[in-house]
């Protein structure tokens, strides 16, 4: 059993690196999308609010696997073709961005109205009050929910195996098939996913302590 691991370490390690790359890129993408769409949703401009709402309802409610298949094999029919790796990053970021948006929006709404009113009283514009007063306070309460989203992205990246992206699950399936040790390989990949998720959670806790207000 151990030689299955040692002989195929290269393949599996490559898979781990790809999983980390997809997770990192898609998570950053999701947070950026989340903040932008959340700002849309709280903005005073009705069309932007509507656009934000449509985005969230569309991407929050479509299964990631369906989206992956549609982007990988459907879009090329209308002339849009991304590499399979990019497809995985885009889809994960798009779906997780919808969830991140609601996290950010809840964070923004969690900041008391008095803060926004005070900012406006000082003559700040919408953008100024958002970036200097509201978001810094909102981010503090969003850390743990964002950890949830990070874990969702890391675990969701395993679905990229279904469109032949050479990440951890794909590598594990490949090795499992070659060595007829599929269950062992699924166990190994499960452990790696747990470690990635725990590291994400740990980073979240550190960040939360750093951001805590000393009262």
């Amino acid at each position, binding site marked *: 059993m151990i030689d299955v691991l040692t002989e195929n370490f290269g393949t599996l390690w490559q898979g781990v690196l790809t999983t980390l790359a997809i997770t990192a890129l898609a998570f950053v993408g999701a947070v950026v999308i989340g903040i932008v769409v959340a700002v849309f949703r709280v903005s005073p*401009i*009705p*069309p*932007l609010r*509507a*656009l934000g709402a*449509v985005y969230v309802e569309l991407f929050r409610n479509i299964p990631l696997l369906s989206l992956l*298949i*549609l982007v*990988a*094999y*459907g*879009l*090329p*029919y*209308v002339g*849009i*073709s991304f590499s*399979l790796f990019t497809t995985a990053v885009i889809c994960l970021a798009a779906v997780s961005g919808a969830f991140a948006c609601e996290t950010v929006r809840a964070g923004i709404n969690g900041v008391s109205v008095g803060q926004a009113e005070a900012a406006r009283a000082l003559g700040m514009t919408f953008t100024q009050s958002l970036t200097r007063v509201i978001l810094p306070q909102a981010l503090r309460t969003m850390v743990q929910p964002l950890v949830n989203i990070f874990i969702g992205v890391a675990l969701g990246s395993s679905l990229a195996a*279904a*469109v*032949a992206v050479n990440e951890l699950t*794909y590598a594990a*399936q*490949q090795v*499992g*098939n*070659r*060595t*007829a040790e*599929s*269950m062992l390989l*699924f166990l190994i990949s499960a452990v790696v996913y747990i470690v990635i998720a725990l590291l994400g959670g740990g980073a979240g806790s550190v960040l939360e302590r750093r951001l805590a207000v000393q009262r």
Partner: protein
Amino acid sequence: MPTSPPSPFVVPPGLTARRFSRRRLGASAAAATLALASLAACGNDTSALTGSNTDVSSYDQIIAAGPTADAATVDGNAWAKKIKDRGSLNTGGSDAGPLFSMKDPATGKLTGFDAGLAQLLSRYITGKEDGPLTLTITTVDTRETLIQNGTVDTVFATYSITPERAKKVAFAGPYYRSGDAVMVKADNTTINSVTDLDGKKVATQQGSTTAARIAKDAPGATVSLFPDDAQCLAALKTDRVDAYVIDQSILISNATTDKTLKVVGEPFSNDFYGIGVTRDDPQAKAFVNDWLEKIEADGSWAKLWKATVGTVVAGEAPAPPKIGSAEGS
């Protein structure tokens, strides 16, 4: 009277913004509809295959005409007796494998060479004319485990015999010799055989032993493994890969339903499919091998081949591979 373009100064800014977003929405909705339509079209191609190619009534007759074991043979074999008492064979396989094991979504009927063999075995053991099956969908990841933990009695799933797998399960057979061929888009003139695949992107199915052989014959090829036939085809048709390599019969059947694709070159490999059974009870493999010998001798094997794989591969049924001839069987 010529219509002048609307001046930006008279249109209120809110309206432009709304128009813009509505137009964008419309465009993406149209793109999504198109994408869905083309995907649906692929699905229809493959499902039409079983409907049009396999003549269901003669297929059923082949199963019904299959041999049955006498009571003493079954009762003397604990593995077979359990199946007879249950009244149906618990088998593992696919329902999305053209020619071998494919479910017609309209009728729910499973047909194909693998499916037919499983039914013939069920007919042999239970004596029932329709050869009842309880199908468990297996994937490449689960075949060995489902046999080992007793969920299924047999696996008929274009299951290539390999020495690694033979450590986990016993292989009866081989019952079929597969040869991989190369499929490309019909307008492709640069790839004419497996050796032209060097430096190209190639799709094959996960779990097939094809990937290893491409690596041997065309070491410079980049191989991507997709879950099933439909996805390999989608990857080829959307130019994600330059070629698709799998058993020739599957490729020919794809090319018959889709004229934008063609099969090039001759089969370049020998791959032996076996019937996976438990290793714990040696009676299982012996029993299945005895049955296989009977259906090969009485012509059921050849008739089933004609009704399934033979609908796309020209010529008479080939001679089945010699039982026990593959390493691991």
